[in-house]
Structure formats: C-alpha cells, structure tokens
C-alpha cells in the first residue's frame, strides 16, 4: 500500500515537474538594431518547442542601464542577448549565472567563437556564451558605381579610392552621396566602423591592459583627416552630424555610395532590400592592411533564475544545425566553427567576406566600455563628433584623451 502510494505520488510529482517545464515561458530581452537574427531564431524555437520565449526588444543605447536597474529592482528577465563587450562588467558585478559546468559539457564547446567565450569568461568561470556574431565590413553600392562610370565589381582597396569614388558618386547630384557614417553621438557605431582604420596599423585607443588612453596617434589623426575631408567635400549627408545611431542603416536607402556596416546589415539588405545591388569588402586601414570589429551578442542568464533548464534548452537549439542556419540566414555568422561550412552552404556569398573578417578582427576588452565608448555622452562619442565635425581637432584630441584617462582613473 505504502509502496503504491509512493509510486503514485512520485508519478504525480513527476507529472507536475514535467508540466511545469512544459509550460514555461522564458522572458528574454534583446537590443534593437541587430537585425532579425535573434527574433527569427526565437520564432522558430516557439514554433517547435513547448517552452515559449517572450521577447522584449530594448533600445540598444538603453539596454545596459535598463538591465542593471531591472536587476536592482528584482524585475530582470531570465536571460538576455547582451552585447558581448558588457559581459565582463555584469559578470564582475556578480549578477550572472555561472554556466561553466554545463557549457563545458557541450560536445562542441571547444569550437564556439573564441572571442565571445573569452569575453564571457570571468575569473575562469563561463557566464556568457556566443549567440550572435558579426564583424564590420565596408559595403559599396554597385548600382551607384555603375551610374558614376566606376567598375562595380572592383572593391575600393584603400581610403583614397573610397574618397575618389565617393566624389564620383556625389557628382551624380541630387540626394546621392558618396559616404555615410553615424557621426552624431553614436559611440557604438563609431567603435564598430571607424576604429578598424587604426587597428589595421596595430594601434588602439586603449593600452593592452585598458589602463591608459592612447587616443592621440598619427594613425588616428590620419583617419580623422580622411573623414573630415569627405565631410568638407560634401560627400556625406548633413544628417550624419546628428545621427545618434537611429539611421545607422542609411545605406539601405540606395543613395549612399559607401558605408561601413556589420554582417547583420548584410542579412537585412539581402532579405529586405533585394533591389540594392551591393558588394562588401574588408575595411581598409588608413595606412594599409585591413581590420574589423568582431562584435555581436553573448547570451547571459540572470543569476538564480528558476528557468535555467529551459534557457539551456534554448541555447542548445541555437547551436543545433537548424538554429545556426536560421541565424546565418539573417546575417549572424556561425558561432560553431565545426559546422560553419555546413551552415554557410547555399547562403549569400557576401556573408563569406564577413566570416573572413574574423581573421583580422579585434574586440576591445574593458569593464568601462559603456562609460568610455558607448555612452552618447562618453568621451569617445564626443571625440568622434568633435574631431570630424568640429573646428578644433587638436582640442578634441586633448579633451577626449584626458577625459578617458580620468574615467579610467576614477573607476570604482
């Protein structure tokens, strides 16, 4: 009798447990401006799984503060797709779930995007795993090249060529412009598209250990001069000076000759703007060479969420061949190198350029990324606007250099 009862109760509790799992709704956040890769993946997951994902899109510039305040207020989502550069800061604050044992148990752990895993690891524990991968590349509009009498199949190999071709396109008149960048106060846009110009020469805006600001270099001066010259020659639309990232995809209007953008944008262009004929190439350095920003998102789990198992199921779905394919179709590069060839098979060939960029790409590592770089009022965002649009280039360098250093020195 007792045995029967035990069996019955354990069966009942099993049912309860599985029921609970079956009905789970995972609350997840994702930032805007990263294309459709993540939302498509979530849709596919919801269609094929019992667990459901409730997705909230948060404006990219506010995600960090919203997540931090949500944690402080006990309203945090179970998991979120977090710009990978922020993973160290949140891991250091002790707010993320330690995924080490589970992650290392995945057969393909060793083949996950190394830079993402590196940024997701804090003090030898894994807190974030790669979800979306993108690199920055330079796109040119082949249709406008043709109209301007340029060879549409010949990618510009250096910035003098970009400028010359941009002039030819601007000469078409009207609303056709040669070049575009979000130069208002979008630190995130500029670190993604502009710093590769100097990275290609091996210099950086921060020292290796992140403790010294090294903004003022001959290479950065040359890069600034090149952008200034294009602005002065009226090759860049006026709106660029105040674009805080909202119009980052201006290239999609078909009237921009060149723009540095990311792999997500390739997905958006291919899927949503089939009329725009464009090519992509690696971003040339100001003194030769090429470079790129390897960015994207890590998936992180809020500490002590009750829905850890469900989130893990979702992550495994993202890493499955099916999940990888959906991500790649929307411009997110393969996170698993062991099945990368299989994932990219039959997809737009231009994605391959973005994959190749991984080889030359760089990802900055600092706990102060928001303060220094991404904040619309941070020194980097201020610097790019002041140096490129302002009247006092030397002053812009001096101010930004000292302000960055002061933020580093005053960090708690």
């Amino acid at each position, binding site marked *: 009798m007792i045995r029967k009862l035990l069996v019955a109760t354990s069966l009942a509790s099993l049912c309860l447990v599985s029921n609970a799992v079956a009905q789970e709704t995972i609350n997840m956040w994702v930032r805007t401006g990263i294309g459709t890769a993540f939302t498509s993946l979530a849709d596919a997951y919801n269609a094929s799984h019992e667990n459901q994902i409730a997705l909230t899109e948060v404006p990219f510039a506010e995600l960090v503060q919203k997540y931090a305040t949500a*944690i402080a207020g006990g309203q945090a989502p179970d998991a979120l797709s977090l710009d990978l550069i922020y993973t160290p800061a949140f891991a250091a604050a002790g707010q993320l779930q330690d995924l080490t044992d589970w992650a290392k148990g995945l057969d393909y752990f060793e083949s996950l995007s190394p830079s993402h895993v590196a940024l997701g690891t804090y003090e030898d524990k894994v807190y974030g795993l790669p979800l979306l991968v993108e690199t920055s590349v330079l796109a040119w509009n082949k249709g406008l090249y043709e109209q301007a009498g340029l060879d549409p199949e010949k990618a510009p190999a250096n910035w003098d060529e970009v400028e010359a071709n941009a002039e030819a396109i601007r000469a078409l008149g009207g609303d056709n412009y040669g070049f575009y960048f979000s130069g208002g106060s979008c630190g995130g846009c500029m670190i993604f598209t502009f710093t590769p110009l100097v990275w290609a020469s091996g210099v950086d805006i921060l020292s290796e250990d992140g403790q010294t600001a090294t903004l003022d270099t001959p290479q950065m001066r040359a890069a600034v001069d090149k952008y200034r010259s294009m602005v002065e020659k009226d090759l860049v639309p*006026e*709106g660029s000076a*105040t674009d805080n990232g909202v119009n980052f995809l201006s290239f999609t209007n078909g009237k921009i000759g060149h723009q540095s953008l990311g792999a997500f944008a390739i997905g958006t262009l291919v899927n949503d703007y089939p009329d725009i004929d464009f090519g992509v190439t690696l971003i040339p350095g100001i003194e030769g060479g090429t470079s790129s920003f390897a960015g994207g998102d890590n998936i992180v789990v809020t500490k002590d969420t009750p829905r850890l198992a469900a989130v893990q199921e979702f992550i495994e779905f993202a890493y499955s061949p099916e999940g990888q394919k959906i991500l790649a179709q929307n411009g997110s590069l393969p996170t698993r190198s062991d099945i990368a060839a299989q994932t990219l098979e039959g997809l737009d060939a231009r994605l391959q350029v973005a994959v190749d960029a991984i080889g030359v790409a760089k990802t900055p590592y600092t706990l102060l990324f928001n303060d220094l770089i991404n*904040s*619309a*009022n941070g020194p980097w965002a201020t610097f790019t*606007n002041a140096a490129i649009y302002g009247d006092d280039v030397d002053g812009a360098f001096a101010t930004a250099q000292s302000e960055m250093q002061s933020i580093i020195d*005053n960090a*708690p």
Partner: protein
Amino acid sequence: MSMTIATPLAAADKPRRRARKSRQWQGLLYIAPAIILVTIFFVIPVLFTVWMSFHNWPLLGQPSWIGLDNYIRMFSDTRFAAALSFTAYYTVIATIAIFALAFPLALFVQNERRGVSAYRTIFFLPVVVGLATASLLWVWLANVDSGLFSPILRAFGVTGRSANLLATFNNAFATIIVMVVWKIVGFTMIILLTGLQSIPSDLIEAARIDGASRWQRFRFLTLPLMRRTLALALILSVTGSVLAFDQFYIMTSGGPQNRMISVVYYIFNQSFVSFQLGYGSALSIVLLGILVALSVVQLWLLRVGDEK
C-alpha cells in the same frame, strides 16, 4: 519636482482653550493627507538620498560608506562644473526669453474684447502638450531631411543647402530655446494675467486722471502691485529651467559634442550610465540646495513677505 507653498495659518483668536485645542486637531486632520503624501514622496526619498550620498553606491553590488568623499569629488569634477555653467546659461536665456514674450502677451489678452478668449486658448495650447512629446515633435520639425524648418530656410534662400539645425551648438541651442518658449510662454502668460487682473481698475483710473503716462502707470503701479505674481512666475520658470532634462536628452542627446549636458542630465548619466548612484545622490542634494538658495534670493529680491 513639486512645490508646496505653505501659508501660515491665521492666528487663532482667543476662545476657550478646549475649543482651540479641538480646532487644532481638526486642522491637523485636514492637512494630514498632504503631510502623508509629502512625507512619503518627498521627505523620506530626500532623507534616503542624503543617506545614499555618503556611500559608494553602485547600481549593482554592495554599497560601502565613504563619508564625504562624494561631496569632495565634486570640487574637482570638471564635467559637473561644465553642467552647472551650461544650466545657468540656459536658465538665464530661457527665463529672459519667456518673460520677454509672456508679459506682452498677458497685456495683450488682458482686456475683455472680441476674440480674446480665442487668443488666450491659442497661446495656452502648447502648455498642455507634454515636454517630452513637444521635444519629439520639434526633433522632427528640425530634422534636416524630413523636417519642416530646413526646407523652408532653403526655399527662402537663407541657407544654400539643407542645413542641419541641430548640428552646431548655437543653432541647436536656439532651436531648443524657441521650442521651450513656445511650450512654456502660455503658462507664464496666464500667471501674469491673474496678477494683472487683480489690480483694481480704479487705481489705474486715478493715476490716469493725475496725468501719469502709460509707461509711468506700468512702472509705478502695475509692476509693484504684481510683485507676488512675478515672484511666483519667476520661481516656477527658474526652477523649471534649472531642472531641464527632457529637451536635451531627446532633441540633441546632450548636444553637439556634449555641450548641452544640464545638471539633471549629468546626474542621470552618473547614476544610470556610470552606475554611481551614490555620487548621483550627492549631486542631487547639492542641486536641491542650489534651488532652495535661488528661491530664497528671488523672494528676497522681490520683497515678498514684508507687507508695506
């Protein structure tokens, strides 16, 4: 920020003690809801903010007591100094601009005549639009590609090509001032109007008979009699300007090269972008002190309180 204007209770006359006592309790009962609200939503938060300001209080993680360090740090904080001076600049310009327009408007709509209520409504209409909504509307109006102002300026030949109004400090600042005046002037006008209408017309009449000119009547009669109204309008305007945030956040994200960071914007950035809630609290307390001081100075300058 809400303002409570305390009116001293009229001194009780001298009935029997018990009656007075019970009336005092009644009075307390009447103001109890206000006291409770002010305590919960003002006094306690302020005290808590003071408490926080003595800590290194990260948004995430454990706060630690650091005494007066946050306040000491302010003295060497150049960005805070820049925010203070920008806010002062903005307050002076915005207040002058608002009064320069609100006074003539109030005089204009003062007298009952045909269509005057239509004018009053039109001038007051922007006030009921939220400041954030108004800012968004003006961002669009000032947009270089799809807005209204740039194409108009271009069509009239003022600028050669479409000008990006928000790209340089002076243009962006002027745009914001125009927006704020458009938004606020109706409110100030209504306050001034009530002051104007409270002046007995026989006084003006008497002055006219005595041969006072229009300017003399305004200078020696209207202005002095409007002192209290002016003080109210001035304090509201100055307080609003010192606390300005929405328009800079929405319209220029802090302005070309960060030159439009107001004090509140800086506090917001310190607290929620840099996650230093403790320092943000200390800055808030200092701002509160500045506002109280400014209000006291204004009341003193306008000699409100001492009856002649």
